[in-house]
């Protein structure tokens, strides 16, 4: 398949929603995903019966697309429950775009929900370390990302202060988002003094453990305006992988986002300089630095210096993770779909106090496993078609 085969701008996100952000006692994960889905469908003027493309991953239900179809009483013609961790949802949007454009389905629903905080209080992981890692008791996933951070610091002189800049910027955005779980002041000093968990990460370098659900609805572009006044068109998508376990990652300072980003930009016909707002999966502070480099916003090794001085905070030179990210907004296990919702809302111009200025192009990036799977979407306003 040639790179031009992607149906650029032929499909659009017409609605998105979140539900149960933070703590949502009394709901199981599917209830949360259904609530988010119904909110999104309501906004689009649709019902579950209209959905014929269903893409869903729940943390502990390995056939969650079947469970959700049953819950809604629908028989979709296209379904997927592909598991690439937190990047699953970007891969769903990619597949949904192909299926919609080919006429295999007309209304695609992508959904996620997790009650991990109220159910267990811990980050839910559906994978276990292999016998080649288990004896060394890495605190997963934190230690895997910490190893990558250690290598980046060694090779490029990245500092703990620079990592802290990422956490502080996320909190400043979260303070503009009423739905964010964490609000309040956070300084670089606070981050440096916080409890060390797995060097160089303190608890402020690590994502939240929350409940939460999200959903988005996609249709073909020709009917998108029937469901949204300002649809967010999908211009490009790409996914790539380098490994499953961190010991098999070829270079801990270079992620597969280089490749997923290259494909997504090529489909969209745009480059990093054109992007107005960036929503990337910040499970840990090093993620933001690695992905800003790998997605071309700064040269390799410069990510730490790039984020200094509030450069990615509100009022900085690049709007990054405007909802507050996995670090300060929400992180119910697989955060990827929340980056799509935020990118979509930014393109639609409905992001309230955190709305970035004149957004025509937004990038949404998902990460899965331990820097293992990377998937990138480029969303655009009608002006970019």
């Amino acid at each position, binding site marked *: 398949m040639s790179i031009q085969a992607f149906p650029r701008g032929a499909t659009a996100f017409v609605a998105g929603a979140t539900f149960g952000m933070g703590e949502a006692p009394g709901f199981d994960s599917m209830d949360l995903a259904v609530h988010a889905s119904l909110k999104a469908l309501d906004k689009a003027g649709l019902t579950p019966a209209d959905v014929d493309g269903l893409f869903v991953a729940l943390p502990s239900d390995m056939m969650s697309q079947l469970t959700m179809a049953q819950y809604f009483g629908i028989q979709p013609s296209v379904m997927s429950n592909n598991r690439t961790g937190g990047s699953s949802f970007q891969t769903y949007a990619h597949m949904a775009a192909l299926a919609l454009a080919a006429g295999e389905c007309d209304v695609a629903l992508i959904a996620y929900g997790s009650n991990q905080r109220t159910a267990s209080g811990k980050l839910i992981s559906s994978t276990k370390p*292999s016998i*080649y*890692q288990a*004896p*060394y*008791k*890495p*605190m997963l996933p934190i*230690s895997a990302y*910490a*190893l*990558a*951070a*250690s*290598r980046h610091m*060694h090779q490029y002189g990245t500092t703990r202060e620079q990592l802290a800049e990422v956490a502080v910027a996320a909190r400043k955005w979260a303070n503009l988002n009423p739905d964010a779980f964490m609000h309040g002041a956070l300084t670089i000093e606070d981050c440096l003094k916080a*409890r*060390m*968990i*797995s*060097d*160089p990460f303190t608890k402020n370098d690590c994502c939240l453990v929350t409940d939460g659900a999200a959903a988005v609805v996609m249709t073909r572009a020709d009917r998108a305006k029937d469901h949204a006044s300002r649809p967010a068109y999908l211009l490009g998508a790409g996914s790539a992988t380098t490994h499953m*376990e*961190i*010991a*098999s990652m070829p270079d*801990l300072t270079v992620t597969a986002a280089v490749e997923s980003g290259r494909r997504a930009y090529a489909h969209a016909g745009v480059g990093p300089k054109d992007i107005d707002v960036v929503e990337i999966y910040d499970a840990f502070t090093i993620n933001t630095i690695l992905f800003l480099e790998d997605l071309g916003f700064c040269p390799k090794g410069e990510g730490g210096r790039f984020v200094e001085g509030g450069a990615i905070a509100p009022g900085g030179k690049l709007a990054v993770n405007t909802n507050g990210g996995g670090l300060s907004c929400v992180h119910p296990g697989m955060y990827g779909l929340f980056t799509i919702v935020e990118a979509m809302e930014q393109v639609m111009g409905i992001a309230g106090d955190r709305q970035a200025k004149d957004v025509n192009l937004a990038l949404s990036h998902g990460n899965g496993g331990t820097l293992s799977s990377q998937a990138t979407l480029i969303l655009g306003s009608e002006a970019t078609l």
Partner: protein
Amino acid sequence: MIQRSRSSGNHVFYPRVAEPRTGSRDLEWVEASGDGVVYAVTVVHKRPPEKDYNVVLVDLAEGPRMMSRVDGIAPDAVKIGMPVKAGIVTEDGRSFVVFTPVTGALA
């Protein structure tokens, strides 16, 4: 011991039934040098009385990289680039490879 492909001469870790990419099923077991260099390191911090410990990735002289631990040194004294030598320990009824710093290489 470590696996090596007879046709390509490349070493493979972790053990598998075929060489990555080529799919060659001609892997044999050969003696490993035990030599390695620390590629990345983190120290997992525990609440007392549990002790902190390090988790490392070691680049083996044969080429592959593996997760391990460096013993015989304080966890926070393990540095990237440090030459290390493999040994085998048994903990909780399970035997596995750990590394110790190469003597004289600490300076």
